[in-house]
């Protein structure tokens, strides 16, 4: 397996945010991760990117696979795993272009002294980096390109989400973790996003995507994993997972036989039942 977690466990005090999670992805696969709020999806990403260290278990990545345990976040990035954040974490006072250049950080060589000396190699690398960054921004047409020298805080919400993705693309990471990329987007923006994710997939990247929007999960993922209370409760195609009684129970609770039909009827409706009231506003 290109990417796998083995018995990954993370506790916060008495709460087991992840309990013995086994999850795998082949090279070039898109895996969707669903589950109610607080089911451990983002915690999984945080453990994989070493923002949290796991209490037990291991993350293996690469070809041939090697353990990522004990690496610092920046070393994980160097291995080729990049992520977006559910709560956007852009460098707001840097320009759009600079945000992408920071994303390219792991692929640039010139350090402190070369920058001070403004050596030829440094200038060449900067020039190359800049044109490559512009090319990365053009992934989203003119939406980001036309704003490339504005500070990121000037961007609209949807464009901020796009910039998060552009930054990940710039890193050329082979493994991309998308944490609720469609959150707060309207249906037409989500449709555009689905198209973008497919294009990223065609570039040969392996993608894990956490999302509450079932249209997106159904539309782009090849395989879906469902979480509840920190444990993996189901795995398979979208339809298999959608019809899994454990999943329905996780979203709708006990004794709601009606829920089964509701969930089965319209996949995307499931979220509005399970989500906090605040999220309802966006649909």
């Amino acid at each position, binding site marked *: 397996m290109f990417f796998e977690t083995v018995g990954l466990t993370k506790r916060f005090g008495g709460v087991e945010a992840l309990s013995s999670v086994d999850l795998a992805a082949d090279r070039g696969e898109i895996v969707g991760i669903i589950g109610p709020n607080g089911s451990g999806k983002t915690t999984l990403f945080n453990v994989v*990117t070493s*923002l949290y260290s796991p209490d037990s278990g291991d993350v293996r990545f690469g070809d041939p696979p090697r353990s990522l345990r004990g690496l*610092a*976040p*920046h070393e*994980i*990035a*160097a291995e080729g795993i*990049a*992520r977006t*954040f559910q709560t956007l*974490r*852009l*460098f*707001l*006072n*840097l320009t759009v272009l*600079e945000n992408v*250049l*920071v*994303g390219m*950080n*792991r692929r*640039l060589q*010139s*350090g*402190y002294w*070369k*920058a*001070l000396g*403004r050596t030829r190699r*440094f200038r060449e690398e*900067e020039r190359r980096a800049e044109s490559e960054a512009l090319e990365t921004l053009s992934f*989203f*047409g*003119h*939406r980001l390109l036309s*704003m490339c*020298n*504005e*500070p990121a*805080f*000037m*961007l*609209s*919400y*949807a*464009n901020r989400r796009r910039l998060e993705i552009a*930054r990940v693309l710039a*890193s050329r990471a082979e493994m991309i973790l998308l944490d609720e990329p469609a959150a707060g987007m*309207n249906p*037409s923006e989500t449709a*555009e996003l689905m*198209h973008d994710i497919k294009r990223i997939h065609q570039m040969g990247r392996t993608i894990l995507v956490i999302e509450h929007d079932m249209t997106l999960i159904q539309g782009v993922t090849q395989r879906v994993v469902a979480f509840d209370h920190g444990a993996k409760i189901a795995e398979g195609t979208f339809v298999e997972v959608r019809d899994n009684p454990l999943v329905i129970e996780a979203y709708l609770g006990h004794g709601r036989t009606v829920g089964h039909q509701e969930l089965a009827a319209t996949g995307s409706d499931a979220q509005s039942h399970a989500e906090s009231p605040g999220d309802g506003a966006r649909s």
Partner: protein
Amino acid sequence: MAEVDYAAKQATVPGRGSAGRVTAARAVILIGTAMLYGLVLFGLSLDQTLHFVLFACVMGAGVYGWTRVPVLRTRAAALLAQEAGFARLCVIVAILAYPIVLRGNPYLIHVAFLAGVFALMAVGLNFTLGFAGLLDLGYAAYFAAGAYTSALLSTVWGLSFWLTLPLAGLVAAGFGFVVAWPCLRVHDRYLALVTLGFGAIVELLARNLRPITGGTDGILNIPPPSLGGFSFLDPLRLGPVTLPFQANFYYLTVALVGLGVVATLRLKNSRVGRSWEAIREDETAAACFGIDLIRHKLKAFTTGSFFAGLAGAVFAHAISFIHPDNFNFPVSMGVLCMVVAGGMGNVGGVITGAVFYVFVPERLREFEKLRLLLFGVSLLLLMRFRPSGIFPSVRRRLELGRDPATGATGRQPEADRPGLAAARSDPSG
């Protein structure tokens, strides 16, 4: 002048006035600079403190009024963006001409030298605080490290100033590195507290380590620098004009500040500078994109303390006497004020802050104890009306705008949902 540099990039778009041609824009910049320069020099040379206060109030009101008229502001910004190189040249000439214009007033040249020393420190702290966003409340400690290193090396071992100057920088940088190593494991206000503690420790060491630092007697008779038989205490002859010896030290600090500015601009638009700014903006995201937080913070700290060390060495040799009181907490606070008041991250801004910080209290000397109060009030007013500094880094960037031709008017954040308008213009949607 980081923003000017940024503007210079913009000016490379086709359609600007070709180099060397005297354009109307250049004439306006030249006249504007000359008028402002004359006005400031006139104000500084006013003998009566009361006159100076009146002058400062009028200037302050003028600047505030200027910022309240958007047309003037955007016009000026567009003009500067268009002729950034020329504007920069004007500023450099004005700085170099200062001792020549004021050659009859050694006192003002000396004050300008002090402003230069503090500007050097502000440029240094700008790396730590302005770029990497690390609050250092013990910055005077590196200033002390540089001053004592240079003073001791030259008084005890008789080393030349030109050797002790870089050594002072390196020792201060090493000291910064050692201090930062444990400190960087804590964040925000804890970092501020720890650095505050280190600053206090260094001052106490200077005060109590009598055998080395001379304790409260300080170190006396630090020799002035000399260059091939020319002592810095001799008057400086530039062709037909003779400048008082204070001009030597003035030009020395100007050169060092220039070095700091070049280093700032070079690092700013590089991988290291971007990493620093990324850390300041969001540590977690920075780490997730391969930035080694500890390494980069150490680099920022060390670079910052290097410049404080240089400042310390120059200060020691120019004043010829150092004392623990030169390196106490108010000095750290002062440099911090310069950086914050001037505009964090913008090297031109922090230098302006330093000049402001040194000149204003100096001219208010007549008010004795009251002067610090007055200065405090002026800082409060500044923070009320320009909360992100005299020349804020990013806001200024916005004011300058992207396209000099359109004059960069009324820049608003993108509509939260570009929706149909954007979708229409972009067929990929």
